[in-house]
Each structure stands twice: as C-alpha cells, then as structure tokens.
C-alpha cells in the first residue's frame, strides 16, 4: 500500500467484490417487487386451409385473426430490460397431448409500449400441426410474456383468462 500501484490495485480488487455484491443485491431484491399484469384475447376469426408442407404432405394451416388488449406496464421495474410478449395457442390431439405454438411475438422495451392494443392481430408464423389435420379440436389462446432483467433471474407469466375456440373445418380458399 506504500505506492500508487499498490493502492490502485487494492481499490480495484475491493471494488470488484463490492460490485458483485451490489449486482447480487439487485438480483435478489427484484422478485419482491409487486406486479399486476393483465391481458384479454378474443379470437375473431379462424380459417383452415390445406397446403403442401415440408415432408408432411398436404397439411392444414390455420389463419387466426384476433383482438389483443393488454396492460403489462406493472412488469416494468428498475431491473426490467425488456419484455418478450407472445400470443400462444395450445391444444391437444389424439396423438399428441401437448401442442404449443407461438402465433405472434413482440419485444417491448419501455413502460409506455407495455400498453398493448392490437385490434386485428394476424398470426405472424404459420400455424400448422405436426400431423396433417387439426381435426377441429379446441384450442386455447393466451398471452405469454418473458421478463428480461438487467441482472438476475428471468421470469415469465401467462394470462389465466384465455379464449378457447374450436378449429373450423377446412375451407377451400382464403376469404
């Protein structure tokens, strides 16, 4: 500690340790912050049309139009870097008991953007089953979100209220 180099070295090392302490404190304190996210999805229209798909052959594709209304602003705390938000469709078929497909997603980077209102949301990604037909089963549509922190644990959530609706039979052409 007698010269500049020694003191600078010691301060640097100590500061590193304390920095990790601060980051750990931030990571530990964050989950205790309250939040009350809410979202409402209403499916307005579904069409099912068949197309050739990869090696599966003629498969049913669903085209979904829905209404999304969500308030995720309470998820934005000091440690929130961004939200990853997606519309999720879940259904069960004879051969596969769990099927989950993301239809649309969005990255939200500020509190203001967390108030989401999309009145005509179309599925961004193709909605096709691993079998060739949906067989008109029921599917539930909900909102799923991932909270990305600046430092710490990633958390996620999903709306409890979701819209359950049947796939319609195949139609011949896109309306």
């Amino acid at each position, binding site marked *: 500690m007698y010269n500049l180099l020694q003191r600078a070295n010691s301060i640097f090392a100590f500061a590193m340790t304390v920095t990790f302490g601060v980051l750990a404190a931030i990571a530990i304190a964050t989950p205790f912050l309250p939040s009350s996210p809410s979202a409402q999805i209403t499916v307005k229209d579904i069409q099912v049309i068949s197309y050739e798909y*990869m090696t599966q052959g003629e498969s049913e594709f669903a085209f979904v139009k829905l209404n999304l209304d969500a308030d995720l602003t309470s998820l934005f705390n000091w440690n929130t870097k961004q939200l990853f938000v997606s519309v999720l469709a879940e259904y069960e078929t004879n051969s596969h*008991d769990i099927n*989950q497909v*993301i239809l649309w997603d969005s990255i939200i980077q500020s509190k203001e953007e967390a108030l989401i209102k999309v009145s005509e949301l179309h599925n961004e990604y193709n909605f096709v089953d691993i079998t060739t037909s949906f067989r008109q089963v029921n599917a539930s549509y909900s909102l799923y979100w991932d909270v990305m*922190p600046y430092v710490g644990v*990633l958390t996620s959530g999903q709306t409890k209220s979701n819209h359950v609706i049947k796939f319609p039979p195949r139609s011949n052409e896109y309306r």
Partner: protein
Amino acid sequence: MFEDEIRFLRKMSKRQLAQQVLNFLMIVSSALMVWKGLALYTNSESPIVVVLSGSMEPAFYRGDLLFLGMPDEPVRVGDICVFKISGRDVPIVHRVIKLHDEKTGKQYILTKGDNNQVDDRGLYNPGQHWIHKEDIIGKVKGFLPYVGMITIIMNDYPQLKYALIGFLGLYMLINRE
C-alpha cells in the same frame, strides 16, 4: 525506472533464478488449469454460458453471461434454451416457438432466435425439422451482462491471451514478492 529491479536480477544466484522461474511456471500453470477447467466445465452440463452471437438481441448481446438450469421440468414454449445440434459442437441459445409432445413423451421442438427473421430449421441438420429433449443442455434462468466479454476477446484475439500471460510472467519475475 527499473534500476532497482535490474540490479536485483543481476545479484541473483542460480538457485534464486531457478526459484523465480518455478514460481512463474506455477502461476502460469494454475491459471491455465483454471482456464481449461472452466472451458471443460462449460462444455459439459455446465450452468454457465457466454452469449456468442447477436441472434437474441436486444435481450442478449455478445459477451453476456447466462446461468442455466437443469431441464428436469418439461420444456415449454417461450423458454429460452441452450441446445446443440447433434454432430455440432457449438451451443445455440434460442427460444422455443413450437412444441408438439407425443403421448409417448417424445418432444418435437422448433426454435428461433428473437433477432432472426426465420426459425432455426436452416441451422438444423439437413432433413431435420425438429430438435428433441436430448439436444437441450439447459434452460436460461439467470443473466449477468458484459461479464463474459473477456472470453470472447480472448477467443477473437488469441495474441491477447499470450500477451497477457507474457505480461503476468514478466511481472512475476521482476516482482520481489
């Protein structure tokens, strides 16, 4: 500036010189052991990975550190997973966007990087349309920004690695402690 140190070096006997060199080798080898140990640990069922690409921006940038959890619970859509395509070494950190679970328990998973326009089928092996539970190394549970940057810099500029070890060695030799 270094008169004291040079005078010291000249005064050393053969024994002292040998001792300094051994000291230096000890430090270098233990640093190497930690480095290699960590690299090995990171390649296996390791809980810590460094983000290597920008395909998950703006969530993860190159150099961020990710903490993984063991995938005991089944994979869910929306999870960010670290997986390896069979036959390849490089782990990929992307999000699960489609999931079809057979009643037998076999999972068919499709992944995509948030920052990519298309899903990962272009990355999978030719003819492969899905990945399965066995391909997944872990699920991302925690996050620490920037800390992994040093691994990336060391990898991109290996001369830096040698330069650093060289500097450390020189410092050890000259230092009287």
